[in-house]
Protein backbone atom coordinates (compact mmCIF):
# COMPACT_ATOMS: atom_id res chain seq x y z
CA UNK A 1 0.00 0.00 0.00
CA UNK A 2 1.76 3.16 -1.07
CA UNK A 3 1.17 5.55 1.74
CA UNK A 4 1.08 9.28 1.24
CA UNK A 5 4.11 10.16 3.26
CA UNK A 6 3.15 13.70 4.18
CA UNK A 7 0.62 12.83 6.90
CA UNK A 8 1.70 9.77 8.99
CA UNK A 9 -0.51 6.74 8.25
CA UNK A 10 -3.42 6.41 10.64
CA UNK A 11 -2.27 3.01 11.86
CA UNK A 12 1.31 1.94 11.19
CA UNK A 13 2.75 -1.45 12.15
CA UNK A 14 6.49 -1.72 11.56
CA UNK A 15 8.48 -4.98 11.82
CA UNK A 16 6.25 -6.47 14.44
CA UNK A 17 7.20 -9.93 15.73
CA UNK A 18 4.84 -12.06 17.82
CA UNK A 19 5.52 -15.40 19.45
CA UNK A 20 3.45 -17.86 21.43
CA UNK A 21 5.58 -19.46 24.15
CA UNK A 22 8.86 -19.85 22.28
CA UNK A 23 7.29 -20.48 18.85
CA UNK A 24 7.62 -17.36 16.64
CA UNK A 25 4.31 -16.79 14.81
CA UNK A 26 5.45 -14.10 12.38
CA UNK A 27 8.35 -11.67 11.99
CA UNK A 28 9.11 -8.29 10.41
CA UNK A 29 5.44 -7.62 9.73
CA UNK A 30 5.14 -4.03 8.46
CA UNK A 31 1.89 -2.55 7.19
CA UNK A 32 0.10 0.75 7.36
CA UNK A 33 -3.63 1.37 7.05
CA UNK A 34 -5.25 4.66 6.05
CA UNK A 35 -8.73 6.12 6.49
CA UNK A 36 -11.52 4.35 4.60
CA UNK A 37 -9.59 1.09 4.25
CA UNK A 38 -10.53 -2.47 5.29
CA UNK A 39 -7.68 -4.91 5.92
CA UNK A 40 -8.55 -8.60 5.72
CA UNK A 41 -5.97 -10.78 7.52
CA UNK A 42 -5.62 -14.23 6.01
CA UNK A 43 -3.68 -17.20 7.40
CA UNK A 44 -4.05 -20.82 8.43
CA UNK A 45 -5.29 -21.75 11.86
CA UNK A 46 -2.72 -21.01 14.54
CA UNK A 47 -0.78 -18.73 12.20
CA UNK A 48 -1.25 -15.81 14.64
CA UNK A 49 -4.25 -13.97 13.17
CA UNK A 50 -5.91 -13.44 16.54
CA UNK A 51 -2.58 -12.61 18.17
CA UNK A 52 -2.03 -9.91 15.53
CA UNK A 53 -5.49 -8.46 16.17
CA UNK A 54 -4.95 -8.52 19.91
CA UNK A 55 -1.56 -6.83 19.64
CA UNK A 56 -3.05 -4.07 17.47
CA UNK A 57 -5.81 -3.73 20.10
CA UNK A 58 -3.09 -3.34 22.73
CA UNK A 59 -3.91 -6.51 24.68
CA UNK A 60 -0.71 -8.32 23.74
CA UNK A 61 2.65 -6.64 24.24
CA UNK A 62 5.41 -7.76 21.88
CA UNK A 63 8.88 -6.46 22.62
CA UNK A 64 10.02 -6.53 18.98
CA UNK A 65 8.36 -4.03 16.66
CA UNK A 66 6.17 -0.94 17.07
CA UNK A 67 2.49 -0.21 16.46
CA UNK A 68 1.67 3.47 16.10
CA UNK A 69 -1.59 5.37 15.79
CA UNK A 70 -1.12 8.75 14.11
CA UNK A 71 2.57 8.58 14.93
CA UNK A 72 2.18 7.78 18.62
CA UNK A 73 2.77 4.39 20.20
CA UNK A 74 -0.48 2.66 21.15
CA UNK A 75 0.74 1.43 24.56
CA UNK A 76 -1.34 3.14 27.31
CA UNK A 77 -2.45 5.82 24.88
CA UNK A 78 -5.99 6.93 25.87
CA UNK A 79 -6.68 8.78 22.63
CA UNK A 80 -6.03 5.56 20.70
CA UNK A 81 -8.15 3.51 23.09
CA UNK A 82 -11.10 5.84 22.68
CA UNK A 83 -11.03 5.63 18.86
CA UNK A 84 -10.72 1.82 18.73
CA UNK A 85 -13.13 -1.03 19.46
CA UNK A 86 -12.09 -4.68 19.57
CA UNK A 87 -14.66 -7.47 19.27
CA UNK A 88 -13.08 -10.83 19.98
CA UNK A 89 -14.52 -14.31 20.03
CA UNK A 90 -15.97 -13.72 23.51
CA UNK A 91 -18.05 -10.56 23.11
CA UNK A 92 -17.85 -9.41 26.74
CA UNK A 93 -21.60 -9.75 27.39
CA UNK A 94 -22.67 -10.59 30.93
CA UNK A 95 -25.14 -13.51 31.06
CA UNK A 96 -26.98 -12.12 34.08
CA UNK A 97 -27.61 -8.71 32.50
CA UNK A 98 -30.31 -8.05 29.90
CA UNK A 99 -29.37 -6.93 26.38
CA UNK A 100 -30.32 -3.34 27.18
CA UNK A 101 -28.21 -3.27 30.35
CA UNK A 102 -25.25 -4.81 28.54
CA UNK A 103 -25.46 -2.22 25.78
CA UNK A 104 -25.95 0.65 28.21
CA UNK A 105 -22.85 -0.36 30.14
CA UNK A 106 -20.74 -0.43 26.99
CA UNK A 107 -22.06 2.87 25.73
CA UNK A 108 -21.17 4.38 29.10
CA UNK A 109 -17.76 2.72 28.90
CA UNK A 110 -17.24 4.27 25.47
CA UNK A 111 -18.01 7.64 27.00
CA UNK A 112 -21.50 8.51 25.73
CA UNK A 113 -23.30 10.70 28.18
CA UNK A 114 -26.89 9.67 27.34
CA UNK A 115 -28.07 6.16 26.63
CA UNK A 116 -31.33 6.97 24.80
CA UNK A 117 -29.92 5.63 21.52
CA UNK A 118 -29.75 2.06 22.89
CA UNK A 119 -33.26 1.00 21.82
CA UNK A 120 -32.70 2.43 18.35
CA UNK A 121 -29.46 0.43 17.98
CA UNK A 122 -31.19 -2.79 19.08
CA UNK A 123 -33.98 -2.15 16.56
CA UNK A 124 -31.45 -1.49 13.81
CA UNK A 125 -29.75 -4.80 14.60
CA UNK A 126 -33.14 -6.54 14.54
CA UNK A 127 -33.03 -7.79 18.14
CA UNK A 128 -35.32 -5.28 19.78
CA UNK A 129 -37.75 -8.08 20.73
CA UNK A 130 -35.13 -9.58 23.10
CA UNK A 131 -34.22 -6.24 24.67
CA UNK A 132 -35.21 -7.41 28.15
CA UNK A 133 -33.98 -10.98 27.77
CA UNK A 134 -30.86 -11.78 29.75
CA UNK A 135 -27.86 -12.51 27.53
CA UNK A 136 -27.79 -16.24 28.36
CA UNK A 137 -31.18 -16.65 26.72
CA UNK A 138 -29.91 -15.27 23.38
CA UNK A 139 -28.74 -17.49 20.52
CA UNK A 140 -25.15 -17.19 19.28
CA UNK A 141 -26.28 -15.12 16.26
CA UNK A 142 -28.30 -12.78 18.47
CA UNK A 143 -25.33 -12.33 20.80
CA UNK A 144 -23.14 -11.35 17.83
CA UNK A 145 -25.76 -8.84 16.74
CA UNK A 146 -25.92 -7.44 20.27
CA UNK A 147 -22.13 -7.10 20.30
CA UNK A 148 -22.31 -5.33 16.94
CA UNK A 149 -25.03 -3.00 18.18
CA UNK A 150 -22.31 -1.34 20.24
CA UNK A 151 -20.51 -0.33 17.04
CA UNK A 152 -23.52 1.49 15.59
CA UNK A 153 -23.35 4.50 17.79
CA UNK A 154 -19.66 4.54 18.61
CA UNK A 155 -17.39 7.38 17.50
CA UNK A 156 -14.53 4.84 17.13
CA UNK A 157 -12.62 5.16 13.82
CA UNK A 158 -10.85 1.79 13.99
CA UNK A 159 -12.85 -1.43 14.31
CA UNK A 160 -10.95 -4.62 15.07
CA UNK A 161 -13.26 -7.59 14.40
CA UNK A 162 -12.30 -11.22 14.98
CA UNK A 163 -14.32 -13.49 12.65
CA UNK A 164 -17.33 -11.14 12.46
CA UNK A 165 -19.28 -13.22 9.95
CA UNK A 166 -19.03 -16.68 11.47
CA UNK A 167 -22.19 -18.24 12.89
CA UNK A 168 -24.52 -15.54 11.57
CA UNK A 169 -27.46 -16.07 9.20
CA UNK A 170 -27.53 -14.37 5.80
CA UNK A 171 -29.77 -11.51 6.97
CA UNK A 172 -27.35 -10.80 9.81
CA UNK A 173 -24.38 -11.04 7.47
CA UNK A 174 -25.91 -8.52 5.06
CA UNK A 175 -26.70 -6.21 7.99
CA UNK A 176 -23.13 -6.31 9.29
CA UNK A 177 -21.77 -5.75 5.77
CA UNK A 178 -23.88 -2.62 5.38
CA UNK A 179 -22.70 -1.31 8.73
CA UNK A 180 -19.07 -1.91 7.76
CA UNK A 181 -19.51 -0.25 4.39
CA UNK A 182 -21.12 2.80 6.01
CA UNK A 183 -18.23 2.93 8.47
CA UNK A 184 -15.68 2.78 5.64
CA UNK A 185 -17.49 5.49 3.69
CA UNK A 186 -17.29 7.70 6.78
CA UNK A 187 -13.47 7.39 6.58
CA UNK A 188 -13.43 4.70 9.27
CA UNK A 189 -11.01 1.72 9.24
CA UNK A 190 -11.62 -1.99 9.79
CA UNK A 191 -9.19 -4.77 10.61
CA UNK A 192 -10.82 -8.18 10.42
CA UNK A 193 -10.21 -11.88 10.00
CA UNK A 194 -12.57 -14.14 8.09
CA UNK A 195 -12.32 -17.66 6.73
CA UNK A 196 -13.95 -16.97 3.42
CA UNK A 197 -12.65 -14.38 0.96
CA UNK A 198 -14.46 -11.06 0.89
CA UNK A 199 -13.60 -10.14 -2.68
CA UNK A 200 -17.22 -10.64 -3.82
CA UNK A 201 -18.72 -8.81 -0.85
CA UNK A 202 -19.59 -5.11 -0.85
CA UNK A 203 -16.39 -4.47 1.10
CA UNK A 204 -14.33 -5.33 -2.00
CA UNK A 205 -13.68 -1.75 -3.26
CA UNK A 206 -11.78 -0.68 -0.16
CA UNK A 207 -10.45 -4.16 0.68
CA UNK A 208 -6.78 -4.99 1.21
CA UNK A 209 -5.54 -8.46 2.03
CA UNK A 210 -2.60 -9.31 4.28
CA UNK A 211 -1.41 -12.91 4.22
CA UNK A 212 0.49 -13.94 7.33
CA UNK A 213 2.25 -16.68 5.37
CA UNK A 214 4.47 -14.04 3.72
CA UNK A 215 5.87 -13.17 7.12
CA UNK A 216 6.43 -16.76 8.21
CA UNK A 217 8.73 -17.90 5.40
CA UNK A 218 11.84 -16.61 7.19
CA UNK A 219 11.09 -18.72 10.28
CA UNK A 220 12.55 -22.18 9.79
CA UNK A 221 16.20 -21.41 10.49
CA UNK A 222 15.60 -19.23 13.58
Amino acid at each position, binding site marked *: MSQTNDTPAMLAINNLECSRGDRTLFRQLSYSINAGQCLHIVGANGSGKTTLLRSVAGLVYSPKGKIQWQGENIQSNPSYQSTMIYLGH*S*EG*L*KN*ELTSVENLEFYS*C*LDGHSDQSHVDGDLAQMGILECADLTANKLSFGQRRRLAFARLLHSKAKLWILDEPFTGIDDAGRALIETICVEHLDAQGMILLTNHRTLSQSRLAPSLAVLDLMDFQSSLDHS
Partner: protein
Amino acid sequence: MAQNTFYLFARREWQLLFRNTSALVQPLCFFIIIALMFPLSLPAENELLTRIGGGVIWVSAVLATLLGLESMFRSDYHDGALEQWLISPRSLPLAMLGKVFAHWSCTGLLLALFAPLLCMTFRIPPDQIWVLFLGLMLGTPSLSLIGAIGAALTVTLHRGGVLLAIIILPLFIPILIFGAGMVTQQAIGGSTASQLYALAAILVLALTLSPFAIAAALRTTIN
Protein backbone atom coordinates in the same frame (compact mmCIF):
# COMPACT_ATOMS: atom_id res chain seq x y z
CA MET B 1 -18.46 13.35 30.64
CA ALA B 2 -20.54 10.24 31.11
CA GLN B 3 -20.96 8.66 34.53
CA ASN B 4 -17.67 8.59 36.33
CA THR B 5 -15.80 5.32 36.22
CA PHE B 6 -16.06 4.49 39.92
CA TYR B 7 -19.85 4.71 40.01
CA LEU B 8 -20.26 2.99 36.64
CA PHE B 9 -18.37 -0.14 37.71
CA ALA B 10 -19.83 -0.15 41.21
CA ARG B 11 -23.39 0.06 39.86
CA ARG B 12 -22.67 -2.72 37.36
CA GLU B 13 -21.23 -4.95 40.09
CA TRP B 14 -24.27 -4.36 42.32
CA GLN B 15 -26.54 -5.17 39.40
CA LEU B 16 -24.69 -8.43 38.84
CA LEU B 17 -24.52 -9.40 42.52
CA PHE B 18 -28.19 -8.72 43.19
CA ARG B 19 -29.13 -10.60 40.04
CA ASN B 20 -28.05 -13.94 41.62
CA THR B 21 -28.47 -13.43 45.35
CA SER B 22 -27.43 -17.02 46.08
CA ALA B 23 -23.83 -16.09 45.31
CA LEU B 24 -24.35 -13.05 47.48
CA VAL B 25 -25.23 -15.05 50.56
CA GLN B 26 -22.53 -17.70 50.20
CA PRO B 27 -19.66 -15.87 51.97
CA LEU B 28 -22.04 -15.02 54.82
CA CYS B 29 -23.17 -18.63 55.28
CA PHE B 30 -19.57 -19.80 55.10
CA PHE B 31 -18.64 -17.25 57.77
CA ILE B 32 -21.42 -18.41 60.10
CA ILE B 33 -20.70 -22.10 59.62
CA ILE B 34 -16.99 -21.72 60.36
CA ALA B 35 -17.63 -19.53 63.37
CA LEU B 36 -20.17 -22.02 64.77
CA MET B 37 -17.86 -24.97 64.30
CA PHE B 38 -15.58 -23.71 67.06
CA PRO B 39 -18.10 -23.90 69.92
CA LEU B 40 -19.06 -27.38 68.70
CA SER B 41 -15.45 -28.48 68.78
CA LEU B 42 -14.71 -27.09 72.26
CA PRO B 43 -15.92 -28.28 75.67
CA ALA B 44 -19.27 -26.53 76.13
CA GLU B 45 -20.26 -24.10 78.85
CA ASN B 46 -16.95 -22.60 79.83
CA GLU B 47 -15.47 -19.17 79.44
CA LEU B 48 -12.72 -20.42 77.06
CA LEU B 49 -15.04 -19.61 74.15
CA THR B 50 -15.51 -16.06 75.33
CA ARG B 51 -11.76 -15.49 75.48
CA ILE B 52 -11.06 -16.79 71.98
CA GLY B 53 -14.33 -15.55 70.44
CA GLY B 54 -12.70 -12.46 68.88
CA GLY B 55 -10.01 -14.54 67.19
CA VAL B 56 -12.55 -17.07 65.93
CA ILE B 57 -14.69 -14.35 64.36
CA TRP B 58 -11.68 -12.72 62.71
CA VAL B 59 -10.32 -15.99 61.27
CA SER B 60 -13.78 -16.86 59.91
CA ALA B 61 -14.06 -13.37 58.37
CA VAL B 62 -10.66 -13.74 56.65
CA LEU B 63 -11.58 -17.17 55.25
CA ALA B 64 -15.01 -15.96 54.11
CA THR B 65 -13.41 -13.00 52.30
CA LEU B 66 -10.99 -15.41 50.66
CA LEU B 67 -13.93 -17.47 49.41
CA GLY B 68 -15.63 -14.36 48.03
CA LEU B 69 -12.45 -13.23 46.22
CA GLU B 70 -12.35 -16.35 44.07
CA SER B 71 -15.34 -15.29 42.02
CA MET B 72 -14.47 -11.61 41.71
CA PHE B 73 -12.83 -11.62 38.26
CA ARG B 74 -13.42 -15.17 37.07
CA SER B 75 -16.76 -14.63 35.31
CA ASP B 76 -15.60 -11.34 33.75
CA TYR B 77 -12.51 -13.10 32.41
CA HIS B 78 -14.45 -15.97 30.84
CA ASP B 79 -16.96 -13.83 28.98
CA GLY B 80 -14.42 -11.31 27.68
CA ALA B 81 -15.58 -8.31 29.72
CA LEU B 82 -12.15 -8.02 31.36
CA GLU B 83 -10.50 -7.51 27.96
CA GLN B 84 -12.89 -4.73 27.13
CA TRP B 85 -11.94 -2.89 30.36
CA LEU B 86 -8.24 -3.19 29.62
CA ILE B 87 -8.57 -1.45 26.28
CA SER B 88 -11.19 1.10 27.28
CA PRO B 89 -10.10 4.72 27.75
CA ARG B 90 -11.46 4.65 31.31
CA SER B 91 -8.86 4.61 34.09
CA LEU B 92 -8.56 0.96 35.13
CA PRO B 93 -7.44 1.57 38.75
CA LEU B 94 -10.51 3.71 39.47
CA ALA B 95 -12.74 1.14 37.77
CA MET B 96 -11.24 -1.64 39.90
CA LEU B 97 -11.70 0.48 43.04
CA GLY B 98 -15.40 0.77 42.19
CA LYS B 99 -15.71 -2.92 41.53
CA VAL B 100 -13.90 -3.94 44.74
CA PHE B 101 -15.98 -1.43 46.75
CA ALA B 102 -19.21 -2.95 45.44
CA HIS B 103 -17.87 -6.46 46.01
CA TRP B 104 -16.83 -5.54 49.59
CA SER B 105 -20.24 -4.06 50.31
CA CYS B 106 -21.77 -7.44 49.54
CA THR B 107 -19.27 -9.58 51.43
CA GLY B 108 -17.08 -7.75 53.96
CA LEU B 109 -19.76 -5.35 55.09
CA LEU B 110 -22.27 -8.17 55.60
CA LEU B 111 -19.73 -10.08 57.71
CA ALA B 112 -19.08 -7.04 59.86
CA LEU B 113 -22.80 -6.36 60.38
CA PHE B 114 -23.50 -9.99 61.17
CA ALA B 115 -20.54 -10.53 63.53
CA PRO B 116 -22.19 -8.95 66.65
CA LEU B 117 -24.97 -11.52 66.36
CA LEU B 118 -22.41 -14.32 66.45
CA CYS B 119 -20.70 -12.70 69.42
CA MET B 120 -23.94 -13.07 71.35
CA THR B 121 -23.75 -16.82 70.94
CA PHE B 122 -20.16 -16.70 72.20
CA ARG B 123 -21.33 -14.61 75.17
CA ILE B 124 -18.74 -11.91 74.47
CA PRO B 125 -19.33 -8.78 76.60
CA PRO B 126 -20.86 -5.82 74.70
CA ASP B 127 -17.83 -3.52 74.91
CA GLN B 128 -15.69 -6.17 73.21
CA ILE B 129 -18.43 -6.67 70.60
CA TRP B 130 -18.28 -2.96 69.77
CA VAL B 131 -14.48 -3.09 69.43
CA LEU B 132 -14.74 -6.21 67.26
CA PHE B 133 -17.35 -4.54 65.02
CA LEU B 134 -15.15 -1.45 64.68
CA GLY B 135 -12.14 -3.60 63.79
CA LEU B 136 -14.10 -5.54 61.18
CA MET B 137 -15.47 -2.36 59.62
CA LEU B 138 -11.91 -1.03 59.24
CA GLY B 139 -10.27 -4.36 58.40
CA THR B 140 -12.56 -6.05 55.85
CA PRO B 141 -12.12 -3.38 53.15
CA SER B 142 -8.33 -3.83 53.30
CA LEU B 143 -8.85 -7.59 53.14
CA SER B 144 -10.94 -7.19 49.96
CA LEU B 145 -8.52 -4.70 48.40
CA ILE B 146 -5.35 -6.73 49.03
CA GLY B 147 -7.17 -9.97 48.20
CA ALA B 148 -8.29 -8.49 44.88
CA ILE B 149 -4.62 -8.21 43.87
CA GLY B 150 -4.26 -11.97 44.36
CA ALA B 151 -7.58 -12.61 42.59
CA ALA B 152 -6.37 -10.55 39.60
CA LEU B 153 -3.07 -12.45 39.50
CA THR B 154 -4.70 -15.89 39.54
CA VAL B 155 -7.73 -15.14 37.33
CA THR B 156 -6.39 -16.93 34.27
CA LEU B 157 -5.43 -20.12 36.14
CA HIS B 158 -8.08 -22.78 36.03
CA ARG B 159 -7.18 -24.05 39.52
CA GLY B 160 -6.34 -20.63 40.94
CA GLY B 161 -8.21 -21.00 44.24
CA VAL B 162 -5.48 -22.79 46.15
CA LEU B 163 -2.76 -20.53 44.81
CA LEU B 164 -4.84 -17.49 45.78
CA ALA B 165 -4.89 -18.70 49.39
CA ILE B 166 -1.14 -19.39 49.44
CA ILE B 167 -0.09 -16.02 48.09
CA ILE B 168 -2.66 -13.86 49.89
CA LEU B 169 -3.06 -15.27 53.42
CA PRO B 170 0.44 -14.23 54.53
CA LEU B 171 -0.45 -10.70 53.45
CA PHE B 172 -3.61 -10.76 55.57
CA ILE B 173 -1.68 -11.49 58.78
CA PRO B 174 -1.10 -7.89 59.96
CA ILE B 175 -4.83 -7.09 59.64
CA LEU B 176 -5.70 -10.29 61.52
CA ILE B 177 -3.18 -9.53 64.28
CA PHE B 178 -4.36 -5.98 64.85
CA GLY B 179 -8.04 -6.84 64.51
CA ALA B 180 -8.04 -9.80 66.87
CA GLY B 181 -5.55 -8.03 69.11
CA MET B 182 -8.05 -5.26 69.71
CA VAL B 183 -10.49 -7.69 71.29
CA THR B 184 -7.92 -9.26 73.61
CA GLN B 185 -6.63 -5.79 74.50
CA GLN B 186 -10.16 -4.69 75.34
CA ALA B 187 -10.66 -7.85 77.36
CA ILE B 188 -7.74 -6.95 79.65
CA GLY B 189 -8.95 -3.38 79.89
CA GLY B 190 -6.14 -1.83 77.89
CA SER B 191 -6.84 0.94 75.35
CA THR B 192 -7.34 -0.28 71.80
CA ALA B 193 -6.42 3.06 70.21
CA SER B 194 -3.08 1.94 68.76
CA GLN B 195 -4.60 -1.04 66.94
CA LEU B 196 -7.35 1.18 65.59
CA TYR B 197 -4.77 3.58 64.16
CA ALA B 198 -2.80 0.66 62.71
CA LEU B 199 -5.89 -0.77 60.99
CA ALA B 200 -6.80 2.69 59.70
CA ALA B 201 -3.25 3.16 58.37
CA ILE B 202 -3.37 -0.19 56.60
CA LEU B 203 -6.75 0.74 55.12
CA VAL B 204 -5.40 4.05 53.79
CA LEU B 205 -2.39 2.24 52.32
CA ALA B 206 -4.66 -0.37 50.72
CA LEU B 207 -7.06 2.25 49.34
CA THR B 208 -4.29 4.24 47.67
CA LEU B 209 -1.92 1.52 46.41
CA SER B 210 -3.89 -1.61 45.68
CA PRO B 211 -6.06 -0.30 42.79
CA PHE B 212 -2.88 0.30 40.81
CA ALA B 213 -1.57 -3.13 41.80
CA ILE B 214 -4.86 -4.73 40.71
CA ALA B 215 -4.73 -2.92 37.35
CA ALA B 216 -1.09 -3.94 36.86
CA ALA B 217 -1.90 -7.54 37.81
CA LEU B 218 -4.73 -7.68 35.26
CA ARG B 219 -2.54 -6.21 32.54
CA THR B 220 0.15 -8.72 33.41
CA THR B 221 -1.94 -11.86 33.28
CA ILE B 222 -4.32 -11.00 30.42
CA ASN B 223 -2.43 -11.30 27.16
